[in-house]
């Protein structure tokens, strides 16, 4: 992974098996399974969407997409934060696509002798994901970069550039905290504590987020990672603070 580019992904799961051919990616990843010739009526309002009727393996359990991730830009660079609770589902897809993307970025760097910009990376990822639209691939990445860009890419095909993004089941809670207090002029410490607070509040309310919080700070000079913090401690501190306010 280029030291100047950082990606947040949804969760972690054991690695997929790969074949030796096609440089490690099984061929069926690039050719979605063929659709049923006869269209059935159980799909959405659009009558001709055979891409959604591909023959799939029956899953042993329903997929869920639980996590909270967030990223925002301020005067001191880009902050990225996420919780660490792993839930089945998008995790495997995200791991794989992150590796594919890393490989493509490195290939570009070798071929063209310059680093791919964040926008270029986002466009590349978006085009790579497009053949899988309508299948069960679920990937949502927030790309944070040294050129002070923040881009959200997801497997639906959305590609959005902005100043603040939060993704995952806990994202509405995180937005609630961030939207109130985020300003461009925050100092580095204030920004970090805001990100921590947002993830903490989201993990408190959202059942599918929790455990620890990972925090990254990206600048033009590189990225730095904070020590992983257990949110359980944060919760006890918050409880104590509240009882002090009530008593005092």
């Amino acid at each position: 992974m280029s030291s100047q580019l950082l990606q947040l992904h949804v969760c972690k799961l054991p690695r997929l098996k790969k074949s030796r051919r096609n440089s490690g990616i099984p061929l069926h990843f690039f050719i979605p399974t063929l659709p049923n010739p006869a269209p059935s009526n159980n799909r959405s309002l659009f009558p001709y969407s055979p891409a959604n009727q591909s023959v799939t393996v029956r899953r042993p359990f329903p997929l869920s997409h639980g996590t909270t991730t967030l990223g925002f830009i301020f005067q001191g660079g880009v902050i990225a934060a996420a919780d660490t609770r792993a839930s089945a589902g998008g995790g495997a897809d995200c791991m794989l696509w992150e590796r594919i993307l890393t490989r493509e970025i490195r290939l570009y760097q070798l071929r063209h002798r310059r680093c791919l910009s964040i926008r270029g990376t986002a466009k590349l990822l978006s085009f790579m994901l497009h053949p899988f639209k309508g299948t069960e691939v679920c990937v949502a990445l927030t790309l944070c970069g040294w050129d002070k860009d923040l881009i959200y890419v997801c497997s639906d095909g959305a590609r959005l550039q902005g100043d603040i993004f939060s993704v995952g089941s806990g994202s509405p809670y995180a937005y609630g905290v961030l939207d109130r207090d985020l300003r461009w002029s925050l100092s580095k410490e204030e920004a970090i504590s805001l990100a921590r607070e947002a993830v903490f509040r989201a993990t408190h309310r959202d059942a599918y987020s929790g455990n620890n919080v990972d925090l990254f700070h990206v600048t033009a000079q590189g990225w730095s990672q904070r020590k992983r913090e257990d949110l359980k401690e944060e919760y006890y501190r918050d409880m104590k603070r509240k009882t002090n306010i009530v008593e005092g």
Partner: protein
Amino acid sequence: MEYLIGIQGPDFVLVAADNVAASSIIQMKHDYDKMFKLSEKILLLCVGEAGDTVQFAEYIQKNVQLYKMRNGYELSPSAAANFTRKNLADYLRSRTPYHVNLLLAGYDDADGPGLYYMDYLSSLAKAPFAAHGYGAFLTLSILDRHYRPDLTRDEALDLLKKCVEELRKRFILNLHSFTVRLIDKEGIHDLEKLTAGAK
């Protein structure tokens, strides 16, 4: 959830689109631009399914620019609209149809202004005024009532403001800002954004 509107005058076309990029219940962006510049005097407004909009619109945009590079002159709005419709129709019965609703607005030096309405089933209609989205249900009757073919620019902008006002009053979702652009023989002009406080 998204809203597009176009009003054609005697020598201009006025178009507006909302600025919200949403993902289920969250507004991910408040300043998202849904208009794609196909050429100096043609704009494509595109709404619909998340990735399809950008993919399809950029595909059309690059092809129109390629035509100019190859042939030395630009496609007319009518030709661009028909090209877009043909592409939509070709993909319609493929494995990957594009679920997008479009408005194409342009000014042709020979034929004058033109507004073309296209939907995801690749129907194409040249219309004096048009709208897409749930907001269209609320605003088309206003356009029916107050539209005249000889509107001046200010009158067209007032008509647009009436429509936006109605959306603010009756539409369940909060679309708090709209990008507004005007196309005439001089090209594409950015007008002031219509926001919640504007009157």
